[in-house]
Structures are given as structure tokens and as C-alpha cells.
């Protein structure tokens, strides 16, 4: 019976639940889902992580390659993050070039994590050679807050990267790679993103599922490391009061501390 | 494949024909239709061939170009197969209709020629890690009357046999740049070793039997077909099932024997035809005169 009711009138179905201050999956409106972090799950990559938030699953793999630096920044390397929403993660996506949503998400994740690595430490030889970190985040299960999972996965994967030592011979213009001597990348900050959905223009749902996201009237994403705020992203929709915003930020800060601790434990448990 | 519509009665007729080893056009199960082969018919290509297998018509041109070898294989040249299913061949190929078939054929050819024992890409190397030859094998399907794989492979092998790769006379290294000097004489060329290159044989299963060289109508009746890529020496270079339907392992093992047997015979027939064409072309070769000789 409940299933039919839900498919005929999903908004009313949610309203009935929220009137009792509970969500259909049993959470209270301000409760976030369990996060699991698994570091270094892919051995063919130079660094990787799998992150699950409830059902949402994102796998992030980093491939390091060697390339020529840009002419205007001869001492810097590259970080190339891309979010992919392949058709296998949800029926909403079709094969082919990235959907608009994937492009928006790539932009968001790239901006949120832009300060994590100092690009200068990726330079090897001035104007000749630098590291290129291709960071690919692939969504395997699209059940809301994929951008949050992407940021966590990227942050974890980046901490597992071990780059081999490279000598560059200026005369012959050939690099030599020493696979046995590896160093980690210095990660400067640890942003964690937490998303919220506004339902019926007043109730705020923390960490919404895909269904809740589609029924919401506005969305909000807060990126913080537990102390300072990196970004607050609220793209239009219904309005929020200052108090509501403050509430969201404090939830996000609390969660950021928790998640960063999880990342630390996950990365620490990796033996290589 | 091609849009041939057959009624149940027609299908049964073909099936019975195959059972009694007398097909619609009078052939037995292991007979090919007459094959016509022409070499060197595209003047601008380095090598070309046209094969007509009853109603199936295929034109193949080979172009050579100088390229940079892949960094992981610095000693090897490159070869690329490209299949174009012309909309003239059958209305099914209109628009993007032939694309899937085209990728299937080109991929299968690529994996058939992948083994260095059949086609040693090292012979295409000019300077290790710097310059190599790249062969573009363009396959144009002009008409589609069944058994496309076999016809294409015959034409490809013939065209590669016919391919003249210009001889490099001098190489000058100037810092990082390479200066190649090709021979001025257009007839000063070398040819590829096609001895071990494979031919494809398609076996289609109709009823309890396998037949070779099926017509478009017979393909419509077939539940399962296998493509073998067989070399002169009876070795298998590639094998794939190309249609819906499945096979019992025993049937498969039997088909293997038939496929290899037919493949060896096909290779032999092609070699003879190629030698004959070569002699004809040699006789037609223009006499050279003048001070540039």
C-alpha cells in the first residue's frame, strides 16, 4: 500500500513522514547518513579511494603522468579532476559526453578542492617536466549528495598518492624514474562538503537521498574543514533564514571533523 | 545482417538443401562461389585490390604514411584498418546503420593481424623510436551479398601483397629533426611479406551442418556463425562467434577442424591467384627509358 501511495503522491508521502519529524529511511531531518571510507582500493592507480554515503558510492582513482608545464607557469604541475556520472549509476544518464550535471559537479569539486595541493611541488624541471595528476571520480551509485562523496574520495585518494622520484637530464631531455623511491604529496587542507535540501520551503533535510533531492525546493552545500568555511553554495530556489543557515553550517562543521578523522584512520591503515 | 526477408517455407527449403548437401545454387556445403580478384586498380594508393565474391563486392586500398612510433613500442610500425559500409551496398547501411558491422569487421581484422608471426610490424620501422611507416588499410564495401568477412579478408591480404612501400635512401639527423630522403624512382619499392597473413573463413550453422560462404539468404537461416582467421600453415590467429545463438562444445571442436581445413585451402587458392595477377602486372609494366632511368 505504502509503495503505491509513494509513487502516486510522493510529496504528500514525504509530508506525512516529516509531520512526525522522521524521514522515510528512518532518519530525523538533521541526521546525516553513515559514511564509509576505503583507501587505496585500486592497485593499478597511483592513489585511490572508495567512499560510500548511505547508498551513494563514488570511486576515485589518481593516475600520475609526466607532461610539459604551461608556458606561463613553468614551475607548476597539473591537477586534473573530473567527475563522471556514467549511465550505470542511475537511469537518468545516457552514454556519451558528460551530462550538464556532471559538468556542474566537476566544476564544483574542482573549486572546492583547488587549494589542497600546491601545484609548485608537482614541478620537476623548470619549463620542461611536471607531474600531471589525473583525478577521476566515478559515481557507481547515484543516491544523492554525490558531490560530497566526490570531495571526500578525492581528499582520501590524494593522501594515498605516492609519486616516484624523477631525475631529468637537461641535455638529453629524457627523464629517469626511480620506482623504488616514492614520496607522498603534501596535502595542505582537508575540506569536507555537506549538502542539504530544503523541503516545502521550510524543512531542512541534511544529506538528502536522490529522491529527496528531486523533491526539494532548494539546495545548499557547505564546504568546511571543521574550523573555517571554504564555500557555501546555494544555487537559487526557495529562501533560507540566517538561523537556518547557521544551523546548517554547524552541522557541516561537526560532520567535517568526523569525516576527516575517518579519512585519517583510513589512510593510516594503508600499508604499502 | 542485410535486410533479406524470408518466409518460413523458404527457410525450410534452404535447410533441407543444406541437409542433403545440395544448396540452392548447386554448391555443396564446403564450396565457395566464384571469386574474382583484381590487383592494382587504384592508381593513387600504394596497393589496392578488388574482390568480387558472387554478389559481394569489396575494394581495398592501402596508403603508406610516415609517422612517429608509439612510445611503448618504439621498434614497431603501425597499421590501421578502416571499414566503410557504403549505403550503396544495402539500404540497411544508410545513416549509421553500417557502423556496428564496420567496427566489428575492422576490430576482427586488427586482432587477426595482431600477432607478430603474421605481420611483423618491426619491418615497418625506419628509425627506432623516431620514424616508422603507418599503413592505412581502407576497406570499402560496395555490395553486400553475404559472407562479407571472407571477401574482405581476401581483398585485404591481396592489397597488402600488392602494396609498394617506398625505399628510404638516406637519413640525416639534424639535432632532434630527422630528414628522410625517399628514392626518386617510383618503382624502387619493397613489398610486405604476406606469406603468413591470415584469411578469414566464416562457418554458418544451418540445421545440423556447417556451411562455408553463405549467401545473404542462407545467413538469414543460420542460428550461429563462427569466424576463423586461418594462416597458410593452418594456425588460428583469431576466432569469434559473430551472431546470436550458441553452440555445444563438441560442435565447436568439429567446426574448428572444418574451419582450419577450409582456411588452408582458401589461402592456397589466393596465393595462386596472386601469383597469376603478379605475372600479368609484370607483363604490363611500362618500359622505362630516358636519362632518368
Amino acid at each position, binding site marked *: 500500500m505504502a509503495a503505491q501511495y509513494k509513487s502516486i503522491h510522493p510529496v504528500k508521502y514525504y509530508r506525512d513522514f516529516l509531520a512526525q519529524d522522521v524521514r522515510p529511511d528512518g532518519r530525523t531531518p538533521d541526521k546525516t547518513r553513515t559514511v564509509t571510507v576505503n583507501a587505496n582500493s*585500486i592497485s*593499478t592507480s597511483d592513489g585511490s579511494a572508495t567512499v560510500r554515503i548511505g*547508498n551513494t*558510492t563514488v*570511486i576515485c*582513482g*589518481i*593516475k*600520475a*603522468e*609526466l*607532461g*610539459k*608545464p604551461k608556458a606561463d607557469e613553468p614551475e607548476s604541475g*597539473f591537477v*586534473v579532476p*573530473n567527475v563522471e556520472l556514467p549511465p*550505470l*549509476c542511475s*537511469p537518468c544518464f545516457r*552514454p556519451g*559526453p558528460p551530462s550538464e550535471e*556532471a559538468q556542474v559537479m*566537476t566544476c564544483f569539486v574542482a573549486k572546492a578542492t583547488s587549494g589542497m595541493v600546491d601545484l609548485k611541488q608537482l614541478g620537476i624541471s623548470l619549463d620542461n617536466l611536471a607531474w*600531471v595528476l589525473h583525478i577521476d571520480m*566515478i559515481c*557507481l*551509485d547515484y*543516491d544523492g549528495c554525490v558531490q560530497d562523496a566526490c570531495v571526500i574520495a578525492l581528499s582520501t585518494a590524494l593522501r594515498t598518492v605516492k609519486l616516484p622520484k*624523477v631525475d631529468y637530464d637537461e641535455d638529453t631531455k629524457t*627523464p629517469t*624514474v*626511480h620506482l623504488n623511491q616514492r614520496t607522498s604529496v603534501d596535502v595542505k587542507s582537508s575540506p569536507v562538503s555537506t549538502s542539504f535540501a530544503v523541503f516545502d520551503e521550510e524543512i531542512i533535510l541534511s544529506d538528502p537521498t*536522490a529522491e529527496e533531492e528531486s523533491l526539494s525546493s532548494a539546495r545548499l552545500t557547505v564546504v568546511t574543514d571543521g574550523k573555517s568555511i571554504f564555500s557555501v553554495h546555494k544555487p537559487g530556489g526557495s529562501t533560507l533564514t540566517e538561523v537556518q543557515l547557521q544551523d546548517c553550517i554547524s552541522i557541516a562543521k561537526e560532520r567535517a571533523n568526523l569525516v576527516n578523522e575517518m579519512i585519517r584512520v583510513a589512510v593510516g591503515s594503508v600499508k604499502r | 545482417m542485410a535486410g533479406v526477408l524470408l518466409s518460413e517455407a523458404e527457410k525450410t527449403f534452404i535447410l533441407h538443401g543444406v541437409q542433403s548437401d545440395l544448396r540452392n545454387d548447386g554448391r555443396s556445403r564446403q564450396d565457395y562461389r566464384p571469386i574474382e580478384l583484381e590487383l592494382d586498380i587504384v592508381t593513387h594508393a600504394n596497393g589496392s585490390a578488388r574482390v568480387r565474391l558472387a554478389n559481394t563486392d569489396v575494394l581495398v586500398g592501402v596508403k603508406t604514411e610516415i609517422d612517429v612510433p608509439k*612510445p611503448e613500442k618504439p621498434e614497431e610500425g603501425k597499421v590501421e584498418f578502416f571499414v566503410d559500409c557504403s549505403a550503396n551496398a544495402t539500404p540497411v547501411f544508410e545513416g549509421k546503420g553500417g557502423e*556496428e558491422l564496420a*567496427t566489428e569487421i575492422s*576490430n576482427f581484422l*586488427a586482432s587477426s593481424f*595482431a*600477432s*607478430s*608471426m603474421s605481420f611483423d610490424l618491426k619491418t615497418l620501422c625506419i628509425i627506432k623510436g623516431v620514424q616508422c611507416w603507418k599503413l592505412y588499410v581502407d576497406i570499402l564495401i560496395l555490395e553486400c551479398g553475404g559472407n562479407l568477412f571472407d571477401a574482405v579478408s581476401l581483398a585485404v591480404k591481396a592489397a597488402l601483397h600488392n602494396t609498394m612501400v617506398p625505399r628510404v635512401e638516406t637519413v640525416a639527423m639534424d639535432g632532434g629533426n630527422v630528414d628522410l630522403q625517399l628514392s626518386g624512382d617510383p618503382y624502387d619499392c619493397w613489398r610486405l611479406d604476406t606469406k603468413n597473413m591470415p584469411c578469414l573463413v566464416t562457418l554458418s550453422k544451418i540445421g545440423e551442418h556447417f556451411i562455408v560462404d553463405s549467401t545473404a539468404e542462407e545467413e538469414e537461416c543460420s542460428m550461429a556463425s563462427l569466424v576463423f582467421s586461418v*594462416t597458410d*600453415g593452418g*594456425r*588460428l*590467429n*583469431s*576466432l*569469434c*562467434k559473430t*551472431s*546470436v*545463438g*550458441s553452440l*555445444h*562444445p563438441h560442435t*565447436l571442436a568439429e567446426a*574448428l577442424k572444418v574451419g582450419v581445413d577450409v582456411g588452408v585451402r582458401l589461402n592456397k587458392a589466393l596465393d595462386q591467384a596472386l601469383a597469376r595477377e603478379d605475372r600479368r602486372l609484370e607483363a604490363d609494366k611500362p618500359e622505362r627509358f630516358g636519362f632518368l632511368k
Partner: protein
Amino acid sequence: MPSDNRRIQGPEVSSPYCLFQSGNKNVDVHSGRSEVLSSRKDSRKFMEHRKIYLKTGVVSQAKGSAYVEFDNTKVICSVFDPREIPNRIEYSQHGELFCVFKFAPFSCLTRRAHQQDAQEKELSLCLKRALEPAVCRHEFPNFQVDIYVMVLENDGGSLAAAITCAGLALADAHVPMYDLVTAASLGVTGDKLLMDPVEEEESLCQNPNKENQNHGLITVALMGAHTQVTQMWQTGSMTAACVSDALTHLVQICEETYPIAQRCLVKSVVDTISKKAQ
């Protein structure tokens, strides 16, 4: 290279660092060969398959899904509800399978492009041909079932893993089927047959080191209950006797993995029922 403004682009040319490693790589290949001829690196027997891990229902948004591990080879597949075949004017008597096989960019030793390349297209087709005989396609005329396969990590045998995975995902999606499909791969180098080769062994099997030596890879997919081979795919160069020998071994291994897939499916059905009963 055409520029892609829908993704963030790195520099135009970048190459994997493995190419420049100190010491000659060719030496490794040959020493690896002699090692393989005596015993395998992961101390398996020559005819022993790696351990298999199967799980269904891994993607919550999909109608059916499955995840397969052959040790380091990891493959995920999801299957969606049948939908009308797009851009098709004429009526099709049989339902169609639409398969997309993709390697994740970080799944192989060298980075993969985001777009499907020729090899992935070939494997997509192989996968489709392997599954078609097992699906009752007459039950959904003029409709297609979308099957998406992603290889998360490739350590050899990714096609075999993909076929097994997709077969389970189809069953998990309640698509009517005649039988489950399981697959296995085998590498040949010289007179040695290597069941379920890892990536390193696969690349060994692709290069002959002596004249007239058998070498290559074979993948076979089998419907266990009917003993029907749904797909056979061989590359390299070998004698017919070698192929039929390999075929017998592969059919045997596929038959051995079949009950594992069955058990996995039964478990998922039992789980669903017990969840409903609660």
C-alpha cells in the same frame, strides 16, 4: 586531439611514467617468461582459477546489478528496465541488448581515455554476443535492455569477469533468461596453458618469443545447465589442436564457476524474501 570543453583538460601531451623507469624493461619481460614456465607468481597451479567473489544488488538505482572480483580484477555492471528501441522505425521481433563496456580511466597500467575506444567497442560487442543466447529475447519485442559494464581494475580476464557479472546482473534485474552465463579466460604461451591469466601473464601470451610458437588468449562463455558455448573469442596465433584443448579446459572451469553464480543468486533471492517478511 579534439579538445573537449565538457571536461577539465590537462596538458595536451602527457605520458605514463612507467616508460622512463630506470633499468631496461625488456629484461623484465624475458625473465618473467622463464619464471612463468616453471611456476606462477601467485603460486597458483596452471589450471587453477583465481578466487571469485560475486555480489548482486550493489547499485541501488539500477533494476539489477552485480559486482565481480577475480582477485584484483574488479568489474561492476548494472542493468536497467527495458525501454523502447530509440530511432528505430521498423518493428523488431526480438528484444535487443544494448551493451556498453568501459574501462575506468585508472583501471589499467596506462591511463584510459574517457571516450570509448576501439578495443572497448569490440569488447562491448563480444559481451553482447555472449549474453544474447541466454536471454529470452522474444519476451520483450521492440524493447531494449541496457547493460552497462565498468571495469574498475583490470588485472587480466576482464572480459570473462564482465560476462559473468552481466549475466548475474541480468538475472538480478528479473530479465527472463534461459540460463546463467559464466565465463573464463585462458592464456597460451608455447606449450603452457595458463588458466585465468593475470595482466602480466596476458601480455606475455600476446608476444611470441620463438618462431612458430603458440601464443594468445581465449575467452569462453558458457550456459552451464545447457552446456552451450555462447561466446568464444580467441586472439594470437595457435594450432587448432591447441584451441580445442583449451576449449575443453575452459568449459570445465566455466562449469565449476556456474554453481558459485547460482548460489550467489539464490542468496540474493533469500535475502529479499526475508527482508520482505520483516
